[in-house]
């Protein structure tokens, strides 16, 4: 199988790799696993409380090149969007942008899930005051 140029570009130069403090109140963390192949994606957003705009996004991914590219692209896309705008990003948009083949569609689903999960985490933090640890019991 050959990868599209865009997948290769994101793989070679992943955007926004890294981590933010997950206990911080303005950071939302999404940690999702793909049941299909056992891959794991972590996506974090830092949201401006006054404007609801995502000012920073970071990711780390354990997965194939398409999964890495999908999450890298997701961080690029959510940045500068409001939380509600970010929720409109669909996995098929990622599939189209990266020209993913059918076997790799679930990798983009993982990215969509990660965005949703990060936003849900952030929203939960805004309701409660105490920080919530997401990934561990």
């Amino acid at each position, binding site marked *: *199988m*050959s*990868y599209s140029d865009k997948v*290769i570009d994101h*793989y*070679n130069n*992943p955007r926004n*790799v890294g*981590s933010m403090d997950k206990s911080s109140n303005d950071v939302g963390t*999404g*940690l*999702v*696993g*793909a*049941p*299909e*192949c*056992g*891959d*794991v*994606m*972590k996506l974090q957003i830092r949201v401006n409380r006054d404007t609801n705009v995502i000012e920073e996004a970071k990711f*780390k*991914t*354990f*997965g*194939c*090149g398409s*999964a*890495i590219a999908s999450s890298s692209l997701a961080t690029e896309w959510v940045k500068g969007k409001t939380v509600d705008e970010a929720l409109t990003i669909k996995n098929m948009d990622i599939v189209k942008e990266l020209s993913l083949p059918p*076997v790799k569609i*679930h990798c983009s689903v*993982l990215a969509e*899930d990660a965005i949703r*999960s990060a936003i849900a985490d952030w929203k939960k933090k805004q309701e409660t005051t105490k920080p919530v640890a997401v*990934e*561990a*019991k």
Partner: protein
Amino acid sequence: MSTDVKVPPQQLPVTHVLAPEGVKLPIYMDNHATTPMDPRVLEEILPYFMEKFGNAASRNHSFGWIAEEGVETARERIAKLVGSTTKEIIFTSGATESDNLAIKGVAEMYREKGNHIITAVTEHKAVLDTCKRLEKYGYRVTYMPVQKDGLIDLDDLKRAMDDKTILVTIMAANNEIGVLQPVAEIGKLCRERGVIFHTDATQAVGKIPVDVNKLNIDVMSISGHKMYGPKGVGALYVRRKNPRVQVSAIIDGGGHERGMRSGTLNVPGIVGLGKACALAQEEMATESVRLAGLRERLRDRIMGKLDEVYINGSMEHRLPGNLNISFAYVEGESLLMGINDVAVSSGSACTSATLEPSYVLKALGTGDDLAHSSIRFGIGRFNTAAEVDYVADRVIETVERLRELSPLYEMAKEGINLKDVKWAGE
């Protein structure tokens, strides 16, 4: 990693660092999938496409005789390499056909005697799927587990055999982890109980000494393209004495190969397989030492630089050119993508069309996560020390980069036990 279910290798533009002096990119280090043909084999084959084009079954003219002579020389060379007689060698289209002929042929021939077959879970699909089909026709099959090191337990085998057992089929060397089964002991157990022993020796013949008498083998599959010969040609050894073994044909027709395999012989392929065997016979002793040395060089260089690297399968009972390692926290397909000027393969679910990780690694008790992180290196005749160093360095550099990208690596460093994590979406 078995060649059947995997997506073909990535075709990425080679954009990387310059190769060191004497190293030509891309590097082929996937010699369990197939081997390049040895130029000396090609040279031997070429005349059989044009001037020596005859049908080896043509008895009435020199064209036929010349072709037959080529075939018989090949048969002698194969027989010599495996310690058999020429009448015990039957030509086929490859090891897949040889496995089918061996298993289906014995099953049909000995149906009166029993209907039980024993194999192991780490066999090649050519054996496993053949056994599965026989189950549909009323045969009973025991799929033996393997131990952590990939070897079967001989006591398990003894326990699995009963008075209906007609065939044990256990491979000599595994195509993913290179692990060598205790063939001689298996053969002895079978001989004592009057059970036929077939071994798929596709990865072993030409790489390590295989003598059908010393190893108590009754039926054995061989393939040309795993030993620097051509693709689409193989052989089946079928014992004629002590005991005499018979197999029913699965391809009917003109009665070639003493009725066991009809079809006009692939003369150039057969000549090539014979030459490959002759070369292996001459060079195996020195070649296996050289390959084992290169393998150790690769292993030492990688393991000297990277921690949490795990070897899959026994190091002691292993093909000289095989190394199968898991790089914890790094997904195999993304690793392959990073070393795109090196051809190796991975047992990762992401590289397989079915999104299942390698069943061989799972059988060793390797967790899905480590199976996911596995790379198979198959070092062969044409690999050099400079190539090994280059490959090791590319692997090290890519693993380090991908670990920085890995949420699992980060969590492990934070002391989170990954086994306790509950994933959203699962």
